[in-house]
């Protein structure tokens, strides 16, 4: 593939590295050596910027000199180890090394987060419960990416799947239906507590399946539509479900309380094994937060695994083919309706599991959690990260959900303190996300980590051409 260099503000740096490479490396140096050299230079530049330029400006050296320098230096070392060696060139296991190390770092995060330094402007690193929140949204973003990124179907009502997952767990693991008393592999719930109490692990699977089924039900009539029409129908669907949740405390005037209306369903049981319960944790090592955090990482790994496997399969190819050219895809024998419905169901499945897990973590679900803005929020993650590329989507989801939870409040506090202002920055959250999205579209339309395929489309501009004999060329 023809490599087209981006033009951007980093170009002078790139040229400087080119020149340095020419001067220092011998002519005989191989491509691996060159790559390593370039990355090492980049790492050195990062070091200089962080420790020589930024540290004095932000004056961290005086507040907590030892801690900041130490932790920041170790973070930089980790970055060097991850980035500089050409891991990807190692045969067979090469492509897996970096993701494995990254997930190792994520798994051990609860142990070192308290020793981390403050990031300039953004403040402290996110705490572990924010981590759970981020992981849940990463999972949802990966699910939505199947629909939007792979199959190219614009879904503006993804929050509905999140809601269905949440309510599935809420119904079957709470005292909502107090008339009955069903207990099945539940943990941490007294045997006399009324309501349905089923093991959360089973409910996660159930929530996924139920949500996928709803996805199919919704998909069958709507996926016949193309482009904008589909977006509008999904938008409506995303509005209707929370309304049902809101008004479901007196279903059809029969007095049957399905959703407990605006008050939501509280409390919801926690997952656990036997006497070992996630809500209370066990000792100082297995704290509740950590258990939820590690389980969320496992769920995200599961989602990534499924998503990658699907992309490289008969179905995944059909999805991409539909995204590229519907007419040609159907002429190659791809059944459009069925294939799109599968994309919808697969996306819904992960959205449902994520919603279910999050409801159990929060121990509550309210209709107010499922506004339209959440659909847009998740869509932003996919677009910011890079449609179709799973690593980009993870990055986008992590960043935006972090901003939502902690980042905006922290930056707001920093701004107010240093500029003597009094602005409640988190209030302007969606305005800020809008600005981020506009900036992304202006400067990096293919997202932070673009899918190589998507990138090609953005450079040349591939359009779904209308049938030729209609336009009459």
């Amino acid at each position, binding site marked *: *593939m*023809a490599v087209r260099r981006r033009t951007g503000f980093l170009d002078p740096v790139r040229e400087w590295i080119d020149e340095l490479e020419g001067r220092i490396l011998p002519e005989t140096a191989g491509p691996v050596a060159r790559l390593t050299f370039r990355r090492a230079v980049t790492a050195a530049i990062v070091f200089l910027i962080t420790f020589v330029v930024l540290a004095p400006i932000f004056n961290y050296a005086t507040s907590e000199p030892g801690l900041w320098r130490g932790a920041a230096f170790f973070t930089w070392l980790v970055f060097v180890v991850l980035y500089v060696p050409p891991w990807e060139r190692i045969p067979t296991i090469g492509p897996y090394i970096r993701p494995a190390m990254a997930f190792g770092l994520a798994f051990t995060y609860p142990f070192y987060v308290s020793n981390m330094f403050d990031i300039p402007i953004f403040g402290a690193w996110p705490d572990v419960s924010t981590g759970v929140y981020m992981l849940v949204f990463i999972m949802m973003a990966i699910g939505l990416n199947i629909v939007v990124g792979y199959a190219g179907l614009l879904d503006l009502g993804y929050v509905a799947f999140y809601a269905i997952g949440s309510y599935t767990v809420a119904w079957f693991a709470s005292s909502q239906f107090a008339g009955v008393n069903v207990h099945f592999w539940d943990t941490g719930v007294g045997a006399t507590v009324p309501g349905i109490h089923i093991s959360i692990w089973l409910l996660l699977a159930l929530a996924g399946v139920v949500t996928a089924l709803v996805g199919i039900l919704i998909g069958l009539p709507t996926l016949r539509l193309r482009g904008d029409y589909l977006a509008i129908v999904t938008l409506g669907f995303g509005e209707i479900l929370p309304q049902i949740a809101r008004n479901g405390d007196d279903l059809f005037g029969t007095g049957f309380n399905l959703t407990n209306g605006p008050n939501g369903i509280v409390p919801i049981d926690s997952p656990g094994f036997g006497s070992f319960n996630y809500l209370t944790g066990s000792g100082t090592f297995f704290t509740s937060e950590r258990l939820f955090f590690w389980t969320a990482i496992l769920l995200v790994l599961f989602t990534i*695994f*499924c998503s990658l*496997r*699907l992309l490289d*399969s*008969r*179905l*995944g*190819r*059909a999805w*991409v*083919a539909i995204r*590229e*050219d519907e*007419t*040609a*895809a*159907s*002429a*190659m*024998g*791809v*059944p*459009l309706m069925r294939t799109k419905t*599968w994309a919808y169901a*697969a996306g819904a499945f992960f959205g449902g599991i994520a919603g279910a897990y999050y409801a159990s973590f929060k121990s509550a679900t309210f209709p107010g959690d499922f506004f339209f803005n959440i659909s847009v929020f998740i869509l932003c993650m996919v677009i910011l990260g890079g449609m179709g590329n799973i690593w980009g989507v993870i990055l986008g989801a992590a960043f935006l959900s972090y901003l939502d939870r902690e980042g905006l409040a922290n930056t707001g506090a920093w701004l107010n303190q240093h500029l003597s202002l009094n602005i409640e920055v988190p209030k302007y959250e969606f305005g800020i996300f809008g600005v981020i999205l506009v900036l992304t579209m202006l400067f990096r339309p293919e997202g932070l980590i673009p899918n190589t*395929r*998507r990138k*090609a*489309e953005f450079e*040349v501009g*591939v359009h779904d*051409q209308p*049938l*030729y*004999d209609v336009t*009459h*060329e």
Partner: protein
Amino acid sequence: MSDLVQIEQLRKEFGGLTAVDDVDFTIPQGTIVSLIGPNGAGKTTFFNMLTGVYKPTSGMIVLKDEDVTGKPPHAITERGVGRTFQNIRLFQTMTALENVLVGMHTQLKGGIVPSILRTPRVKREEVQARTRARELLEFSGLGDVDEEEYARNLSYGDQRRLEVARALAINPQLLLLDEPTAGMNPQETLEFTGFVAKLRAEHDLTILLIEHDMRVVMGISDRVTVFDYGEKIAEGTPTEVQKDERVIEAYLGSGAASAA
């Protein structure tokens, strides 16, 4: 010789315009049939009805003794009809190999769960599919092209070849080629004509061809059908059609026939 395709009274109207006007048509098994006619004669509309892209206004399409009228494109493809497009419609940012693999969609079984688990069966199927896809690329003259190259980066001629390879991946009995030599130079056209003959011989195919290049049409067709204003105005062997007065009139205008 039995007929692979029988078409009766096929009609397509777009609003007030009749694009195809009650056409009867048969394609005998194992033949190369060409469809010619001036621009706007309704050839491609006819093609699109045959492949299910358009629903006919009226009439019937029978494929291998089965009524397929109004069936969706993928259902018709499943029954062994492969096609190429007038203006190339490859999956631009999929690789050459993946393009061919999409063509095999109907022959592969891998469902959603087995694909995630990558069961031995799915694995075997994928390996076989890739082997066959490479053979098809080779057969279509793309042996030298990097199979991991994006379709959009291939040269024009190679893109045309890839479209044929993708259509062959369907394992068709009937192959529909819509102006395959458009934009080719005489040398490439000559090569392509040879390729089509080889196709029929080696893949046991019936071919329906829309073509403007008369050397190609007269060179390889068993039968030629001529469309004008949505109507079939002539049908027969190439030599018969060449002498037909209505054909000459359609192409050259009235008076030309008597002048010749």
